[in-house]
């Protein structure tokens, strides 16, 4: 009578966080299915720039997560491709790092005036104490790192640990690796209910294709993580925070690092619904320069905002005047999964045994994905996680 459920865990969401959860859980010996109503990387992952940043995070739980993730991305990137499914040398061959366009390019934060530089210096001081590599660069030395930078900044801080991946490739290749180790990918399948036992624990999920009995469900639904939580009968206040990215025509390498103005950190930390923009400029291996980042809470409105584009263009040209002479070839937008205190929800939900959250990473989901996946797999297998997960508890908003 007792039939074993087909999987140990169902991960809902085939974005980069769901992919990392599936990858580490499979690696830990679990039988995993990934279910997504859309394609691989169809939500916020596919609209991301692929930032792996420590530079924009103040000391605290998110920085600890970012430092762990930075190490894990480096380890993943160093894996030979053959270990990740597919034959080496075929199609997008090469090692894993090459396949996902991993670049340990480093970040450069610039401060326009002396007061800004003083604040940035103090910020970097705190980060260094928490384990971040942060090197102060005097104004005139900035041009050795970025020859096309506009004249005039008071100085900056170089963060060698900042890196970049192509996020859709990162998700797809993590999923391919998980599949080659036995995970199942179920795309175009929508979860319509999370079923529970009389004792309140997870019994399984219902999808538009049928029922899946499974003792553990991982909510990696990103910006739609609140909806999935609601299906399970628990509250999680994930809200969309819209962002636009401008993509220039392909250019020779004129921007070497991930470069942004010091105000960006304040924008990230703000909870305001109003529009905030601070240019984050970076080159890509394919040639185009990416220009982010705007933040506004306008629901899921996909309409292009001319004002947002204007502000991003002004700020990008202020950092790199040479960009004023190029064409913007396209633009895209995405919706960051925003939680009110800017920390993701990671780990077992105390309100519903068997439900795990891995969502709400706002604009840092690509960067924080491996650490999130690893920590979830530790909990799923009853092992001690590398970090204290209590700051990321999903029920921390419950009483407000």
């Amino acid at each position, binding site marked *: 009578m007792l039939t074993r459920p087909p999987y140990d865990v169902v991960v809902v969401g085939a974005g980069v966080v769901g992919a990392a959860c599936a990858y580490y859980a499979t690696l830990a010996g679990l039988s995993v299915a990934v279910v997504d109503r859309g394609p691989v990387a169809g939500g916020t992952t596919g609209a991301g720039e692929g930032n792996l940043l420590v530079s924009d995070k103040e000391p605290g739980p998110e920085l600890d997560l970012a430092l762990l993730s930075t190490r894990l991305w480096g380890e993943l990137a160093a894996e030979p491709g053959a270990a990740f499914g597919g034959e080496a040398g075929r199609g997008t061959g090469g090692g894993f790092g090459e396949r996902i366009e991993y670049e340990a390019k480093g970040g450069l934060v610039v401060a326009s005036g002396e007061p800004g530089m003083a604040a940035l210096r103090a910020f970097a001081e705190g980060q260094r104490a928490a384990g971040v590599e942060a090197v102060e660069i005097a104004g005139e030395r900035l041009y050795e790192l970025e020859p096309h930078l506009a004249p005039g900044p008071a100085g900056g801080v170089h963060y060698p640990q900042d890196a970049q991946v192509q996020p859709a490739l990162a998700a797809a290749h993590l999923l391919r690796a998980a599949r080659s180790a036995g995970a199942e990918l179920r795309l175009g399948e929508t979860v319509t209910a999370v079923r529970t036992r009389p004792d309140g624990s997870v019994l399984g999920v219902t999808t538009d294709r049928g029922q899946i009995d499974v003792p553990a469900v991982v909510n990696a639904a990103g910006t739609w993580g609140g909806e999935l939580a609601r299906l399970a009968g628990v509250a999680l206040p994930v809200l969309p925070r819209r962002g636009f990215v401008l993509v220039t025509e392909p250019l020779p390498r004129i921007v070497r690092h991930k470069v942004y103005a010091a105000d960006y950190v304040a924008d990230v930390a703000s909870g305001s619904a109003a529009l905030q923009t601070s240019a984050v400029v970076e080159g890509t291996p394919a040639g185009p320069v990416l220009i982010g980042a705007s933040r506004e809470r306008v629901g899921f409105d996909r*309409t292009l905002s001319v004002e947002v584009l204007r502000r991003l263009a002004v700020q*990008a040209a202020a950092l790199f005047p040479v960009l004023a002479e190029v064409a913007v070839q396209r633009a895209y*937008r995405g919706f960051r999964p925003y939680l009110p205190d800017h920390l993701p929800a990671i780990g077992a939900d105390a309100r519903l045994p068997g439900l795990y959250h891995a969502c709400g990473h706002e604009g840092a989901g690509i960067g924080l994905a491996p650490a999130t996946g690893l920590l979830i797999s530790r909990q799923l297998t009853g092992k001690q996680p590398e970090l204290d997960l209590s700051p990321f508890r999903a029920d921390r908003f419950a009483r407000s």
Partner: protein
Amino acid sequence: MPTSPSDHPNRPEAGERAVSEVYDLAVVGAGPAGLAAAVTAAGLGLRCALLDAGPRPGGQYYRHPAPGLGAVHPERLHHGWAAFAALSSRLKVHTAAGRITYLTGHQVWTAERGEIWRLHATLGPEVGAHAVVRARTVLLATGAYERQLPFPGWTLPGVVTAGGAQAMLKSGLVLPGRRVVVAGSGPLLLAAASSLVSAGATVPAVVEATSYLHYAKGLPTLAANPAKLAEGAGHGATLLRHGVRLRRSSAVVEAHGTERVTAVTVARLDRDWRPVPGSERRIACDALAVGHGLLPQIELATELGARTRETPDGSVALAVDSGMRTSLAGLWAAGETCGVGGADLALAEGELAARVIAGRPVPPALRARRERRRAFAELMAAAHRPGPAWTEWLRPDTDVCRCEEVPAARIREAVEELGAGDARTVKLLTRAGMGWCQGRMCGPAVACLSGDDRPRADSRPLACPVPLAQLAGPEPS
């Protein structure tokens, strides 16, 4: 397709009034639909702005020889030149009287909705070369671009699009080659071949992928459109006179050559467009004009969420009601944007839309003409829908996206091993469609290879590239 700035050296200045005034109607596109709409609306008392990326009216259809070429009889290359001449002279009269502000060299990159719509246009690469046109209503008459299906050798010099060959003839009075194979599918092939032989080229074969048997299913529609039949018969007679052979149910499956095309391989196709093994034959040529019909250019509307419909040829067009209204308040569409159907249909729809926008009754004869032409267009579209097995003539190393040089094998890998099941995911994983043309060239092929059988509108938040300095600049006022 973005028009290169060098195409319009004679662009007049936008003028102060152009940007400060709120027009009753802004028409985007000065091809048959847009011209007909603008002159009709102006005649009914509306103040109109007519924006177009090109230097002269007529769009892709009514192309002119460049003024310096001294062409004496451009009408010989055109059907319906008299209709165009009449529209042009009405445009001149309305422009002179201040009822139409005709804005050449204006490429609209986005539209903002509202009680007052705002159209943002770029006029060229210079910093200040941008404009904002404000209007209470907008008519989208942005036409269509050519559907391309890749095949081995399609990137060789000497391989041009069927429409490109027509355009070279009409505007440059030059031939793409001396011995030109015309291939693909759709009524444009006969028109292109007929123009080419009339201009002195040899056309060793017209290679049409469909069998034309579909047409037999629509006899009443055919009988109701005698003018279209006469047009087709005219092309047919020209081709017959020049001894041009029409090969039906066949396709060019490879173009050969190193420096440029020297020959093509033509194969017979089964009903799904699968090449029949052993049916290949080689035809020597020095140019190949190839096209698979046209696709509506509608991103200005779809980016705002306008409803679309799938046409019988597998393309995506704007959904409009009998008054040419889109699903967005204040936005109308006419001509190819509502489904490709040719200049006569576009003229009828432009005029009809203008009457509705002006709040005037639509003459029954006009409505009937529009409906007849639309029915004919749908019949043609059904006949020329690409068969699902055309992808079998691709080789693993055939570039599907030529901007980003993405071969078929990479796209198949993304689908089979990386979990891509639609064109957008393929694009994210391979860069196919991320280049300068923004997927206009490879979009249909990528969608087909991804296994996504529901055509959907491509996402293009910017309808064309925009100089960053113009995005950054203060709004012209």
